[in-house]
């Protein structure tokens, strides 16, 4: 862990310092409508982490958030409060669905210094946390939940509060353990997608492949094509693809990392049957929910990999993919995908000098100089910040124009 140079060598402060990164203090989900009257406050709480906290304290914390949001609404009726800054921690608020609130409480990063009389002094580095970063983390918590469970409202419709609580518990209990708040940075948080650079001809061949597979396996609704953890083609809309991409690259793919020696083989299902020849092989695929704003589709997610190329096939959940279907998919897709994967590899080696080229999925990227975050002296190198829909979110502007001139001649910048 790098040691910050603050105050090094000056007077009474010795250079012995300990740094503590930000940490998750608590995370809860509530709906004030479920317990509007006194004595019913407990009913508001749909999920609370850590669960060991005493009931009354939970109620107090939830109540406080509720009050803050209500209070600030008088000043800003259309845009509710997003965060609350205090010396020791920061609370982030998000209302993903009407009246359903998600709150994440993060402890500010700390520097523990030794004073001249030997007593440790704790200094909270409140400025180091960026709201935007952690607000996005919170939003992603909801998106990820929704990807695998559908909306809160739908759960309510399907089985009332009990079902919703059950789903929230099951999901967040595991998911919160994967949140590494100390290493959250710009690159992960904004949910950008890394696209794989490819020449036009190979890209068109992939299009052709996807279209033909969708035609011959006509129960496939959507397809996404990835190579080396980077996206090449998405048949899903932007918002859904972003969260699916995050799931694939941070959860599914790492779980199935091949040891170096096996890289040349491997036509297989990452979700679904492990062994196609085993008649008892289970054909269970994760279910995902997309287009929740209008069509509200529930789909089976089939991920099939050949060498470094991975294809996601999404099938309507009402159709249960059988072992037979999987075998058919394997025989239709396998050979073509292998050829395609080696084509891509060949093209990539030819165009290696383009490897620094990153496309944004509905975002345009600007390079920013490296910055310190959360007390950690991370030199992130070329940090890429997405630009949403033609508008720029800029945190630091330093020599942006110079960087742009060299790296992005193809982008038109408004001054």
């Amino acid at each position, binding site marked *: 862990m790098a040691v910050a140079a603050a105050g090094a060598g000056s007077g009474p402060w010795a250079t012995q310092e300990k740094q503590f990164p930000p940490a998750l203090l608590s995370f809860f989900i509530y709906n004030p409508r479920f317990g509007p009257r006194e004595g019913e406050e407990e009913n508001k709480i749909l999920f609370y982490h850590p669960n060991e906290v005493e009931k009354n304290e939970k109620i107090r914390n939830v109540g406080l958030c509720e009050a803050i949001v209500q209070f600030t609404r008088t000043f800003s009726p259309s845009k509710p409060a997003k965060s609350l800054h205090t010396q020791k921690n920061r609370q982030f608020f998000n209302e993903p669905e009407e009246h359903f609130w998600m709150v994440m409480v993060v402890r500010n990063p700390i520097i523990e210094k030794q004073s001249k009389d030997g007593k440790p002094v704790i200094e909270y580095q409140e400025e180091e946390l960026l709201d935007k970063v952690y607000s996005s983390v919170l939003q992603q918590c909801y998106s990820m939940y929704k990807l695998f469970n559908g909306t809160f409202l739908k759960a309510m419709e399907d089985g009332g509060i009990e079902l919703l609580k059950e789903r929230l518990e099951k999901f967040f209990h595991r998911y919160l353990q994967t949140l590494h708040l100390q290493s959250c940075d710009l690159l992960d948080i904004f949910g950008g997608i890394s696209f794989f650079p490819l020449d036009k001809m190979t890209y*068109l061949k992939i*299009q052709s492949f996807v279209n033909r597979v969708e*035609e011959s396996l006509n129960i496939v609704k959507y397809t996404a094509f990835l190579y080396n953890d980077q996206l090449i083609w998405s*048949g899903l*809309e932007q918002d859904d693809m972003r969260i699916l991409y995050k799931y694939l690259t941070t959860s599914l793919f790492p779980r199935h990392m091949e040891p170096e020696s096996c890289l040349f083989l491997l036509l297989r299902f990452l979700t679904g049957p492990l062994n196609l020849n085993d008649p008892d092989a289970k054909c269970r695929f994760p279910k995902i929910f997309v287009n929740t704003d209008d069509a509200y589709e529930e789909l089976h997610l089939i991920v099939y990999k050949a060498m470094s190329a991975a294809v996601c096939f999404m099938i309507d959940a009402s159709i249960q993919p059988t072992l037979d279907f999987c075998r058919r998919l394997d025989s239709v897709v396998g050979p073509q995908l292998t050829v395609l994967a080696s084509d891509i590899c060949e093209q990539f080696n030819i165009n290696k000098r383009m490897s620094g080229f990153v496309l944004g999925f509905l975002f345009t990227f600007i390079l920013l100089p490296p910055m310190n975050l959360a007390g950690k002296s991370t030199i992130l190198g070329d940090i890429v910040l997405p630009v949403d*829909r033609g508008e720029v979110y800029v945190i630091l502007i330093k020599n942006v124009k110079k960087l742009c001139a060299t790296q992005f*001649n193809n*982008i038109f910048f408004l001054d």
Partner: protein
Amino acid sequence: MGEEDYYLELCERPVQFEKANPVNCVFFDEANKQVRRPAPSSPARMDDKGEVKCIKFSLENKILAVQRTSKTVVLPEKRSLKLLKSHNLNVNWYMYCPESAVILLSTTVLENVLQPFHFRAGTMSKLPKFEIELPAAPKSTKPSLSERDIAMATVYGQLYVLFLRHHSRTSNSTGAEVVLYHLPREGACKKMHILKLNRTGKFALNVVDNLVVVHHQDTETSVIFDIKLRGEFDGSVTFHHPVLPARSIQPYQIPIAGNGFCRGVSAAVLPRGCVLTMIFGSYLWNLQVKLEPIVNLLPDKGRLMDFLLQRKECKMVILSVCSQMLSESDRASLPVIATVFDKLNHEYKKYLDAEQSYAMAVEAGQSRSSPLLKRPVRTQAVLDQSDVYTHVLSAFVEKKEMPHKFVIAVLMEYIRSLNQFQIAVQHYLHELVIKTLVQHNLFYMLHQFLQYHVLSDSKPLACLLLSLESFYPPAHQLSLDMLKRLSTANDEIVEVLLSKHQVLAALRFIRGIGGHDNISARKFLDAAKQTEDNMLFYTIFRFFEQRNQRLRGSPNFTPGEHCEEHVAFFKQIFGDQALMRPTTF
């Protein structure tokens, strides 16, 4: 059988002539492909010395030779014969092909050793002789090659000797065959193709549109062979089967005065595409191939394309095949559609390359030195993007009932195929893709295609993107990016920015590329005024005053700039004293 089942027909207007009789005889002029008859009142007066055995015209009807007896040849006056060469051979019979100027002489007892001679530029050269393999004959008869079983024809620009072999050489296959021996200009004759007829009897041959047509007398049906289609190659010879099931030639109705309609039946077939009938007067037809019925008789679209692309009048039929395979009822699968596109573009590319080579050769001044270099002829088999767009794709895209996934997949297949053959895709095809994507709100797909430059940059495309801004806001930025990449589009960029009231951005951009001294002050001031932002107007006005000072030493606008209105407006808002004072030195 309806009209749609016949794939061979007689031409529309036959040549009609009087029936022949011994005095008034008729000859078929092979060289000029005409029926000739010496008329009593013909200008080329001939002494009526009796029977005329044979008349032969030279090419271009210049010289007429009349053979009266088996040994004399009479020529018109003022012409003399010169002996070119003399060969001593025992000849059984001969055959002459005027198109290629080759004569074939049958020699030896079996009559099957053929000696060809080639006439060219006043010389007669002997080509290597070759032997026709005769089938095993029944014990009682002597095997020999009959003149009736031989024909000479040009197929795909090459001369072939066609031998109608009534029994196959291999014991296990029945039926007659046509064996094609290729007679090259130089080198030995080689047996190249065998056309399997799978029946026996009497046959006649034609060559029409580079197809070998074999007529079977007993069944009154005909079959066609295309030697360029893939056959079974055994290492030396390619075996071909008929392209289609046998059919009769489409009946032709001859109007006979007073007697109603009767069917014409072929009574004699001449080797080069003509049918002569002696019933109800004499008619001479050319045989033609009907392409439309063939479309329905050949289910393998790849093979159908291969066949059609070799035919002379193929363009509209091919386009209709394309339309049909994209139709709701007869929809082909994407791999088949892709194959068809690839075959079309293969031909298209061949022509483009030939054109390019020719253009380069002309530029290099080679055309004069090499008489062989000819401008490549564009056959009907060359279908370019404009053809496919006009006749197939634009209607296809309009069909409401088509699932949009299929429409986009087809368009992308065509673009993929063009790219594969390294043919630059025309912008109207890209527009078709964009319009379809927009129609179905598939903006995220459009965005991905643009980012991978699948839809090439072009000014029309950039303008189309701009027009989409109200449906899809990022289209504005995508358009500007595209214009920037098209480095010749600076004017358009300025126009786009001004239209969006981004006057400062436009000004800074133009200054960034060093063009700020040339722009029209009026245009920018108009745009600034439209924003109704007075401070912006002030800024722009001041900029141009400074420019005036720099260029002409005075901040005033010249009358030619037509900015009086704006000066007045400025004075009205900010007062006279706000105007820039001329700098005095």
